[in-house]
């Protein structure tokens, strides 16, 4: 069983569209959507029969107004500016419990926080593990870890070849949580200066955590000079460019139809993505 995580650094490069295509092309797999605060993969996979569990993680402080003597110690010590006018701002509260520990009149309690939901859905492509982080909630890294854990259990139980993970943008804790222990990170980039800048940083994160990397240049003919620059950079860094995909509205048309593009069209982009999957699955060794 091998896990591939699709990341990008920069948002909007085409990760989810490509993962949906892999869902169609790979025979034996489970899908995981680790972009838990803006999950879109389910929009292309037509899931049904969803198992839904509450995700409880972290705590939030509450001040009992009747007990509070307004001494102000909690406000003074809170490092997250979460207490003002002797009330806790639950959006800013990081649940550290410092205020609870120091309150001289025990006016503060810490309550468990329901931070979101995790889901396991069935789709025509197989199981999809996904989640939704609650609005303004923390612990996205933990929810990502739960999604991956669910996917791993399914892969083991069903004896599946692949876990294919749609990763979040950025390089912070949800990305790190989606990356650790993966067999391959496929980095989907675009030939823009922003895309190149962000690619270099996410490559750094993958290397930091010891995950091998392949690159796919999406929208490659948007700027041929930049695409060449990406290829040169990857060559110098001994990173494989697994495929280049043309800039084509067919990607968006497929999203509008709620389909992976390899099922929507049989044109150039579909052929390029099929080649991408060939390259990636060969690299994974299955």
């Amino acid at each position: 069983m091998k896990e591939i995580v699709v990341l990008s650094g920069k948002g909007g490069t085409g990760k989810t569209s490509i993962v949906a295509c892999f869902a169609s092309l790979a025979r034996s797999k489970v899908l995981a959507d680790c972009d838990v605060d803006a999950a879109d993969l389910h929009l292309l996979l037509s899931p049904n029969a969803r198992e839904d569990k509450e995700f409880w993680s972290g705590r939030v402080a509450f001040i009992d107004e009747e007990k509070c003597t307004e001494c102000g110690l909690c406000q003074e010590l809170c490092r997250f500016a979460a207490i003002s006018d002797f009330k806790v701002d639950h959006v800013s509260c990081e649940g550290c419990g410092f205020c609870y520990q120091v309150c001289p009149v025990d006016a503060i309690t810490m309550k468990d926080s329901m931070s979101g939901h995790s889901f396991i859905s069935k789709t025509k492509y197989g199981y999809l593990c996904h989640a939704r982080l609650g609005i303004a909630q923390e612990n996205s890294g933990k929810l990502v870890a739960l999604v991956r854990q669910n996917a791993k259990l399914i892969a083991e139980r069903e004896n599946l070849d692949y876990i294919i993970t749609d990763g979040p943008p950025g390089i912070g804790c949800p990305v790190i949580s989606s990356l650790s222990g993966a067999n391959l990170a496929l980095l989907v980039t675009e030939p823009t200066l922003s895309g190149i800048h962000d690619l270099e940083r996410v490559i750094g994160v993958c290397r930091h955590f010891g995950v091998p990397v392949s690159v796919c240049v999406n929208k490659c003919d948007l700027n041929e000079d930049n695409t060449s620059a990406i290829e040169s950079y990857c060559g110098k860094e001994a990173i494989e460019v697994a495929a280049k995909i043309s800039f084509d509205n067919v990607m968006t048309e497929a999203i509008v139809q709620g389909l992976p593009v390899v099922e929507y069209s049989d044109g150039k982009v579909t052929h390029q993505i099929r080649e991408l999957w060939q390259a990636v699955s060969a690299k994974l060794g299955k």
Partner: protein
Amino acid sequence: MIISVASGKGGTGKTLVATSLAISLRPNHRVQLLDCDVEEPNANILLRLAITHSQPVYVPIPSVDEAKCTYCGKCAEICAYNAIGVIKKKVLIFPELCHGCGACSYLCPESAITEEGKEVGVFETGDSENLGLIQGRLNVGEAMAPPVIREVKKHIDCGSVVIIDIPPGTSCPVIEAVKGSDFCLLVTEPTPFGLNDLSLAVEVVRELDIPSGVIVNRVGLGTDEVEQYCHREEIPIMLRIPLDRDIATHYSGGIALVEGMPRWRQEFLRLFQDIRGVTAVKRLAK
């Protein structure tokens, strides 16, 4: 006035909008652009300001003086993040889990814990022709963006028009960056992904009680679902940017929209006047 530019979905054009607004306003206003997408800061690729000041951002991490420590375990008991553990005669600290709340240091009965700064990122500034840039950059391998975002926001100049480039998503880095804004522009695209993530971003700004308006980018592809949603939810669509390969090509080469196509300056000036109108009404209503 503090204007945030957010989206939910990555790659919709937040940085394109934030930089275009900043450049359009600078002839007549003192402008500050805060790049709070500290995981992948891109605004300066389009602004090209020389960085004249750079300093590290530190998170306070506990350091235990084992000569004073009695291994009572109170620090481990207090820590909400399992960042400090006491096993027999050894204290283990996990800096990557520490939120820097200060509780362990304050509450250690032997005063055996001090705090040392751990570098997690940098903040950088540049300034030219009425436009100041403050950008934060999370170090590759670090998980937590909010401390770097908080540092960036400490440098808000209330005398300027402040424009904040917000990260993608809806979780804690976004909240940290958006909170306190007078207005939030939500940049989306007219596709099912754009709509899905816009609806999540709208929940965030409503939770934070920040007035908002939508900018629809790449009009011409996709559907009118976003328009219908905004109409139903009574959220104003304040600007529409068409699907235009030339806009994408300029962006790919690091050219801001209003520099590659100066006729757009008028649109962004009008946008600013509209935002001023909405925020004035809100102030009166209060």
